[in-house]
């Protein structure tokens, strides 16, 4: 488990991260969201022991990241994918991985078997002897992901893992992240891709220097927005909003052609009553759906509020 308590990092007079407290459970996918310069990378660097906090503490499996003697132990248990792949461009893909594998203390034949398995998983085995400078951005990103996986760490810190990847490569990486979770690994993501965060993360932390929100995407949705339901009718008219007025749980009604868009408190409870009224009033309900507020909307609301404050 990773625990951060009142984590603060200053660079001179500039405060990058302030009073950040959170915990990351094992076996979950955790996302850091925030605008550029919000302190995501600094937070991840502190949690991996790459830089030390100015104030506060952080532990990885009870090992304090501020203690230099813990760093090698933490790094054996942590894989880091930085924002830029940071590969040795003139060396082959295999040599890059072999170098890092040896630094992680792996030895042949285990190391060569591990490299082979991972290169085959990412469909790069045939290119293993090619210099990395001949690879596309997506291929380099895959090599960097393999690199942080080599020593089979419990925790993976992935900074913008699908940044700059084409849709196919993005899907490979996303699927791989989900496979990691299935195999019990803990993945900590920093991403601007809110769609990915929504699909992948069990819990997200929205940060902008300090913590703005910390919860599951669905809890954030229900905390920040009322639920919106759409009723598709065969025919609709302008009398309907008037007819729905007695229902206090209906906060707003908007008619768009034959569709009624309503904000309600509890769709599971409220929808049957609304349908009953509509049917009794002679309208024909074709189907009912819920509009799911995206994580992007939540994020923009949080970050926007914080900006105004």
């Amino acid at each position, binding site marked *: 488990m990773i625990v951060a308590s009142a984590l603060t990092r200053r660079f001179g007079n500039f405060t990058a991260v302030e009073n950040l407290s959170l915990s990351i459970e094992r076996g979950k996918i955790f996302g850091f969201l925030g605008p550029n310069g919000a302190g995501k990378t600094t937070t991840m660097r502190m949690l991996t022991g*790459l*830089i030390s906090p100015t104030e506060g503490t952080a532990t990885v499996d009870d090992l304090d990241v501020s203690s230099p*003697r813990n760093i090698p132990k933490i790094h054996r248990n942590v894989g*880091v994918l930085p924002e830029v792949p*940071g590969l*040795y461009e003139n060396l082959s893909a295999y040599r890059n991985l072999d170098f*890092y594998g*040896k*630094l992680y203390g792996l030895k042949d034949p285990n190391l060569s078997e591990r490299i082979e398995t991972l290169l085959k998983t990412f469909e790069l085995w045939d290119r293993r002897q090619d210099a990395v400078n001949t690879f596309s951005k997506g291929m380099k990103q895959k090599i960097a992901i393999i690199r942080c996986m080599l020593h089979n760490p419990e925790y993976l810190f992935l900074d913008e893992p699908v940044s700059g990847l084409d849709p196919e490569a993005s899907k490979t990486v996303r699927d791989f992240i989900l496979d990691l979770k299935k195999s019990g690994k803990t993945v900590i993501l920093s991403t601007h891709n809110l769609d990915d965060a929504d699909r992948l993360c069990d819990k997200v932390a929205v940060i902008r220097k300090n913590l703005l929100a910390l919860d599951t995407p669905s809890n954030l949705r229900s905390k920040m927005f009322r639920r919106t339901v759409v009723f598709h009718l065969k025919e609709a008219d302008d009398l309907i909003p008037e007819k729905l007025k007695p229902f206090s749980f209906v906060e707003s009604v908007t008619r768009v052609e034959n569709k009624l868009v309503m904000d309600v408190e509890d769709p599971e409870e409220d929808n049957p009553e609304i349908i009953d009224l509509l049917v009794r009033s002679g309208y024909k309900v074709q189907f009912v759906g819920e509009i799911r507020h995206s994580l992007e909307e939540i994020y923009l609301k949080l970050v926007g509020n914080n900006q105004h404050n």
Partner: protein
Amino acid sequence: MWGTISTTDELKPKLNWGAVREIFVKDLQELSKNRYVFYSMLILPCLLVGVTLINTYSTLSNPQISAAQISILISTVSETVIIVPAIVSVLIGSTSVVIEKNNRSLEPLLATPITDSELLVGKALAPFVPGLGIGLVSYTAIIIGVDVLTYPVYHAFILPTPILLYQMLVLAPLVGLFGTFVALFISTKIKDVRAAQQVSTFAVLPLFFVLIFASFFLTSTLDLLFALTLILVVAIVGFVRLTISQFKRESILVSWK
């Protein structure tokens, strides 16, 4: 009982020479792929060896010159080879760090279990070993070449002289170390390979000015050698301390530009 020993070991982590060797070998492999650096580090030694041998050959055409005189003359000319370990170390040292910066490979490297000391030693060995190696090969080529040229005339091996041996075995490693740490320190501050090489080269030049300056005032060769050794040791200690202050995980990620 064994637990106590283990805890003590953890408190004083030893240098993992396997990790140091990996960094050293990887840097040399990268260097071998960089033709610009690879060829530029061979030009100077080839030039100095060539000049010394041509000088020996032309001196031999003077029948008046004795074996002792030619020995002193050749030793003086070959003193310039002392610059080789420094220049080669500067070329490689500045490149190995700047390449890491440009590739943005320092963060994944520091995320491995290596310590700051292992990184520094690995990064220092990569320029020092080839620098010293090329320097020693240059000295050896001069000794063999000069002896091959002069033996038919004097029927004796005029090289190596004790001074030349002192240069080879004591001064050349010190000069190599000096060049290495100057390059490592300067390349932590500079982002461009060529700029790092140029600034590092300028930084090692004062050493040679000191050598020339000292030769005017010190009448005994022995005094000159000891003075130079002392200057080198002091300069190396200074640059090692400066470099160590920069080779800390935090400084590398936050301050290296």
